[in-house]
Structure formats: C-alpha cells, structure tokens
C-alpha cells in the first residue's frame, strides 16, 4: 500500500512537473497547436511517443520490461466518437483531463472550472452507461474483430492478450513506427499557418 502511494507521488509529481515545463499546461500553447500556428507541443508529443515506444519495445525484446505490464485498451466505435466529443472540449477549453490538474497547481484558476465540468461530465457518463449499453450497443462494437476483447496492437508485445495486426517481430514494426514519429517531430515546422489577423 505504502509502496503504491510513494510510486504514485513520484510518477504523478514527475508527470505534472514535465507537463508544465513543456507548456502543455498553457491553453495558449494547446490552442496554438490545434489551430496549427505553434507546433511546439506537436513536436514534443510526437517525439515523446516515438522515443518511449522505441525503448519500450527494446525493453520487451530483451526481457527488461515484463510483457504483463502491457495494458492495451479495446478498439470499439465509441473510442472514435468519444474522441470526437473530447476533441470539441479540447479545442474549446485548451486543457486535457491531466494537464488541467497540473495547470491548476501551476496557478491557472480557470483550470478549476474545467475540472468541475469534468467531474460532472464523467458522472453523467457513469449514469448514462446502462442506457447506452441497452439502446446504443453499436457504440461498443469492435472496429476490428480478432478475439473476444479486441485489445489490439500494431506491433507484437509478447502479451498473449493482445493480438498484433502485423505478424513481424514487435521490435521491427514498433521500431519503424517510432522512427517515423521521431523524424516527423524534427520535420514539422514551428508554424504551419498564420493567424488571420496580427495581434
């Protein structure tokens, strides 16, 4: 129990710290990324995913990371629709569920209202879930059907619960994807478009 609390404090603290340092806690930077006028955060995220993925699959291949630590989520239609609903709030508010917590810590007070709205939104979903399951069950239909749970990856992780779409060795598939992500982070310009009027 104590170990769990200490690990939670360490990783949560580090995550909040880094989110603020890379300015993911700044709605100006989030909106800048989403309206393509300031691609700083796009480069951060692309590089972070590529870099961590590369090392993760090396760790899996040499047995440093146990395959049982892999936790993949199911691929159902609600992931896309839920993502779109998320996108509406993300584009409007400029915070994610996590960055808004770190932003509040760093001194942004509007983040409190984002969190309050989030608590209500999450609870409304909890209350709606039974109804959605009965009346809109297609939301939970799988996008690709491979096994019972459909917790699918592109690259083989070695975890039997997670079938891979590509039957090549995991490190090859993940390595290619990781390199594409990291190269993209270098190639994306700082700015793709200008705002329509100078401010």
């Amino acid at each position, binding site marked *: 129990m104590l170990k769990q609390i200490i690990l939670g404090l360490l990783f949560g603290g580090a995550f909040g710290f880094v989110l603020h340092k890379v300015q993911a806690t700044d709605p100006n930077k989030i909106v800048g990324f989403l309206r393509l006028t300031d691609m700083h955060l796009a480069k951060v995220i692309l590089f972070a995913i590529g870099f961590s993925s590369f090392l993760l699959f090396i760790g899996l291949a040499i047995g440093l990371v146990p395959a049982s630590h892999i936790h993949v989520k199911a691929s159902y239609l609600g992931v896309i629709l*839920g993502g779109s609903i998320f996108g509406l709030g993300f584009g409007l508010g400029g915070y994610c569920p996590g960055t808004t917590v770190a932003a509040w810590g760093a001194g942004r007070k509007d983040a409190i209202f984002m969190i309050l709205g989030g608590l209500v939104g999450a609870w409304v979903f909890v209350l709606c879930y039974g109804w959605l399951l009965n009346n809109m069950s297609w939301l939970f239909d799988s996008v690709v059907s491979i096994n019972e749970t459909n917790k699918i990856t592109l690259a083989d992780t070695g975890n039997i619960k997670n079938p891979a779409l590509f039957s090549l060795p995991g490190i090859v598939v993940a390595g290619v994807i990781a390199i594409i992500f990291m190269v993209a982070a270098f190639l994306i310009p700082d700015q793709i478009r200008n705002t329509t009027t100078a401010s």
Partner: protein
Amino acid sequence: MTQTWGWLKGGIVLGLVFLTAVAIVKPIGVSTQYVIADCLIFCNVDPALAQEIPQEDGSVIYKSSNPYLNKSKGKYVKAAKNPGNYGFVFVLAMFVGGWLAAKFGGPTVADDEKWIPRVWRENIGPSWGKRMAGAFFAGFMILFGARLAGGCTSGHMMSGMMQTSLSGYLFAIGVFTIAVPVSILLFRR
C-alpha cells in the same frame, strides 16, 4: 536556468516518464480518476453505488447498483473505497508537480493569465463568466468523451500509441478531426 524546455528535451523527458511508468508500474492514465473522485462524493449519498462485501475467506467483493461502476469486478468501487491507491495518488501528485515546476524554475503564470488565457481574451473577450462557463462546458465534454472512449490523452494517445495500440490511433483520429477545426474557427486572432 531556462524556464521552459525545448521540444527535444521536453519530448525525451516526457517519453522517459511514460516509459519508466510502464516498466515499473503500469501505463499512465488520468481520466478514470475523475470517476473515482465522483464516487468518493456520490457513493456516500447512495451507499448502494459502492458496496464492500467481506467474504468468509477474508477476501472482499466490491459491487455497485450502477452498471458502469460494477464493471471489471467493481474495480472503480474498490478504488473509491481505498483512495490511497496508485492511480488516485498519481493525479493528486500531478497538482503538486505543476506547483513545483512553477515555483522552482518556472515559468510562472502571469497575473492577467491566471483566470483567462490570452488566446481566449483576444478572441472571445475579457468576460470572466464566459471563460468559466466555457471551461466548465469544455471539461464536461472532455470527460464525457474520455469515459465513452475509455481513456484520454495520457491513456489512449501517449500510453496507447507508445504500446502501438490500435485504440490510441482511433482516439487520436477522433480528437484531431474535431479539435483542429473547432480551434481554427473559434480562435482566429
């Protein structure tokens, strides 16, 4: 000391946080904890929502009258009954991490940014009420959406795509298809 980190340094450190988390504990995810926080409040109002049933062999079964909270052997109920768990402490610690970063080294949030971000002020206006209503509505949407999707930016996009999960790509497609045009249309200046 430079206040903010450039994209390469930031990307490397952020990547290392996600990597060590999955190597030592499990993949990072945030949005689930909003449900746990809700249950801490509402499950006291209606005890049927969070039932802790001790068994004869000393183990405990967790149940809920709500079908969502009852999912996965009542894992949400279990977490809400034991809030000193990794996932919940993790999110509380994110607040501390943000505070520490601003306090030691910065960047600090400018006074005129504390309630209303510049990009909002320039495009939507200086109204306090409008920003707070907008933030509340946006918060509602991101958590309703994240719960329907089963995760948010950290769980689906970062942790998910790091593991090459198909669901991470689906979530990212859903998010950016809407968020990019919404942001472009709403924030022109």
